[in-house]
């Protein structure tokens, strides 16, 4: 999975692309740490480029929600599609996360 950062005036845009699976754990964790250090006001995770997410990937979304939640930083999941959207629907993550299409 590729991770790119974009700092905007009122939020940090993190674009994820490729497959989001358990192998991405270390990189994802690093990204979360960077976010926390960079005085993030709001985080938008752009999932439009993700073609597949597994249960570990969903777990990582829970982790970032938890970490940002500790500092009251809002988190938005943006543009999930295909299999990702399906996974989010099945696990009712729309009840846990703010989802923007």
């Amino acid at each position: 999975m590729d991770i790119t950062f974009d700092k905007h005036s009122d939020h940090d845009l993190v674009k994820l692309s490729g497959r989001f699976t358990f192998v991405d754990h270390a990189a994802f964790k690093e990204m979360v740490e960077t976010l926390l250090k960079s005085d993030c006001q709001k985080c938008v995770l752009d999932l439009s480029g993700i073609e597949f997410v597994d249960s570990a990937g969903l777990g990582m979304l829970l982790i970032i929600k938890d970490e940002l939640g500790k500092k009251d930083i809002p988190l938005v999941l943006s543009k999930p599609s295909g299999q990702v959207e399906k996974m989010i629907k099945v696990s009712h993550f729309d009840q846990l996360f703010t989802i923007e299409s």
Partner: protein
Amino acid sequence: MFVYGHKANQKNLKLISECLGVPLAPSEKGLKNALTLKPKELENQVLVTGIKSTQDLELLLEFKPRLIIQDTAHSVDFDLSPALLEGRGFFLSLSTETAYKSELAHYVYRTMEARGHPYEDPDSLIIVLQEIIANAIMYGNIGIESIDRGSLEGMSALEKKLTEAFENPDIAQKHVTLSFNKEDSDYLFSVRDQGVWTATKKNKENPFLRGTSIVEEYTSSYFIDKASSRVSFSFKNIQSELLTRQKAQTEITSYNEKEGSAEEEEDAFSSFLTNVDIYESCLLVVDDLAFNRQIISSILKAKGFNNIHFALDGQEAIEKVRDINPDLMILDLMMPKVDGYEVCRTMRQDKEYRKLPIIIQTALESSIDRNKAFTAGATDIVTKPINSSELTSRVLIHLENRLFMKELTAYQARLQEELEGAVLMQKEIFPSPEKIKDLETAFNVKVSAEFQACSELTGDMWGLIKDSKKRLGVYVADFSGHGVSAAVNTFRLDSLLHTLSKIDCPANLLHELSAKLKPSMRPGHYATMCYGYIDQENEEFVYAASGCTPPLIRLPDQSVHVCENAGIPIGISADITYTLHRAPFPKGSILLLYSDALSDNLCDLDDPTMGPLVALLKTCTSPKETIQTLLEAMKKSNDVVDDDLTLLAIQG
């Protein structure tokens, strides 16, 4: 007595003749190949020849020569000791390679020793040493051919001085002045004061370092100046310093002591190993020459090793290994009966000793010979003459590796045992065949289940319960992650289900489970689960789901109902309200619950209708047939299943 030799080597023959005071053979009796001459002709003569093999040697010995002089560039890599022991005179080298291979010197020494006294034949020994040292100085660089060896007078004078030195230690300790320069020679010999002799190579660029090992062996100190291509060395008290075994040991010990600071660093490195004294390792030194065994033993003892065993030949080596099971073997290559290569091969063929570190010591330096040693199974090679710090470094590295491996293997074995214990414990939380049978009878249902863990411990579980309202409860759960932590969660769930058994509403049960599991589950971890009961009176399957796979119900009319399955996985939050679902379950229907290993394998990611699974289920009329059909379908698909597989079919 005459000196016989090949016509091409006239110069050397002359030199030998002069040194020995033995006339050269008449030219028509020059030796093209000793082996073609009749034995009688060579009896009691001096042969200057090029022996290439033990067979050559044996043949020549039949000629009963007084002295055989090896006059080629061949390395002495076969066993000379029998010939030497028989007293057939000495082999000495007039060429670079053999000159500074101390293999030769050791043969010489050993023979002297075997004869009872190193000085029994001082003339011969003087010649050997003279040649060795002179060659070491002059031919230090391999590849230089046919070099003028300095004047004959110079060589003789050197010999004379050496003789004096050997016979009179006092002289050796004082100044030895000797200088002989010959303008047209390539070499200048000059001797400075305080017993230091110097040889300077004129007009040559290559430093002569290759001879230093031999020089080191036979001098008490030496100095090499690369810039000016000079080697200076001194003999002090030759008799007691050089030629006694005791002195050799003392030299090695003091050499090691000088390297004290290097040793301290090694000790820090060794501290990686816990509770083990590497110096208690059992070492086996294999060498047919007592001198070599002594030297190696002294080196090792000086380092602190105190558990050293010996073998004198290959056969004994093999027997000793089986007897004492050493931690490391230092193995000579050239030995009688069974050589080092054979010992290596034998050890590697034996499962017990395949990993035994074997350090081969050899004078052979060609890459072909080295490859031969590695092919035979050597772990490492140390060249002769043995350099004490190189030997001890290699020994320590291999011993440490071996100890690390042993620790690692033991740790793995312990972990494996514990894992096996945990696996057995986990089996207990799954319904036993007896329990299943009891429930089948009690509820008049048929149950068929298949569970395949992809590794030892699993995060998947399934179960059957007689709930508080005496209905048949059923569940399938899948904890995220793998291994030990996922498995621990299954134990938690099992306990919780027992404590929460009074809750008869599946939706409430999932809510409670989630709340009770959350505190002990790390962020990012959760379980998908389906829990429900079969309501036989109302012909319904009443259940709640938290993101599990959609339960499938095959109705008696062969249609398949895909049940609702969405829900927030349990363990994430304590505040989730789950929906209670009711699905039709008339008599004869088959309920199928399963882990995502099945659906990921057989169905498309985007197909919520579970097309392929539904198609397969349509054809099944019993739980047993259902399970079999699904397993066959999984086998047929080429995907590798790397997740736990749970299949549970119940027919009402």
